[in-house]
């Protein structure tokens, strides 16, 4: 019974975090102009324009969001996403956005610590 509750809690956490990534990925892909000014200086100056970097970041978040929601390579995906969010929150500094991302980073890191639940593809494929 307790395990059932734990798995449901993990599922809710996983899906809600994935939803956040989907939302922001969609925003970045559809209107990169609005996000280009947030690209940190160290990331600029390469062969990609700020807009393309935003789109690339959107694709990254979309892909890893799909990994989260499907529960495939869950530990790997959640670890990478939490590092990604930590970098964003450090870049943003002590602002409302920075604080929000800091909280999200640790929620995502919790997924890494918890590991796959029974609804994850990781678990389902292991059984087969």
């Amino acid at each position, binding site marked *: 019974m307790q395990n059932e509750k734990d798995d449901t809690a993990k599922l809710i956490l996983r899906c809600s975090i994935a939803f956040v990534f989907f939302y922001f990925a969609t925003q970045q892909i559809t209107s990169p*102009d609005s996000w280009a000014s947030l690209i940190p200086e160290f990331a600029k100056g390469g062969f990609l324009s700020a807009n393309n970097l935003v789109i690339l970041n959107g694709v990254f978040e979309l*892909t890893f969001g799909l990994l989260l929601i499907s529960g495939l390579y869950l530990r790997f995906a959640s670890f990478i996403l939490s590092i990604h969010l930590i970098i964003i929150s450090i870049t943003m500094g002590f602002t409302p956005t920075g604080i929000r991302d800091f909280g999200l980073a640790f929620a995502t890191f919790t997924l890494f610590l918890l590991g796959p639940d029974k609804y994850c593809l*990781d678990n389902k494929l292991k059984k087969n």
Partner: protein
Amino acid sequence: MNKKILYLFLIIVVSIALTAFLRLQGDKLIVSDDKIVLQGDSVKTEQNSEGKESNEQNQETNKITKEELFKHNSMQDCWISYDGKVYDITSFLPNHPGTPQKILPYCGTSDEFQKAFTKQHGTSKIKTLITVGVLMGDFDIVGEI
């Protein structure tokens, strides 16, 4: 293990397809009456005279005159510009910690706002403009008031 890689491959394909779809949606332009609406990297203008004439052009840079910017200089409609980026900060005005009256004199301005903002906040808070306002676009600000 092979199945996992297959699923991973599928997820990558799905995300690329979704990106392509979303990009196509983002490039669509919303045009109503004689208004010009900016979206993505292109600008489309259309005359309202029974839809007789339409004109589409891609522009590397968009221009806005200081006169046009200055039209948005009230509590109900406040645009400011920083470093060529024009923001609509109307909804933020009532929430400004230093009271709206501190910003109001700079509504509709570019250089004046930029100087006042930098003097008050330095350059570390430039990024907050995007979070408190709506980015209208990146413009060359031309002309005089």
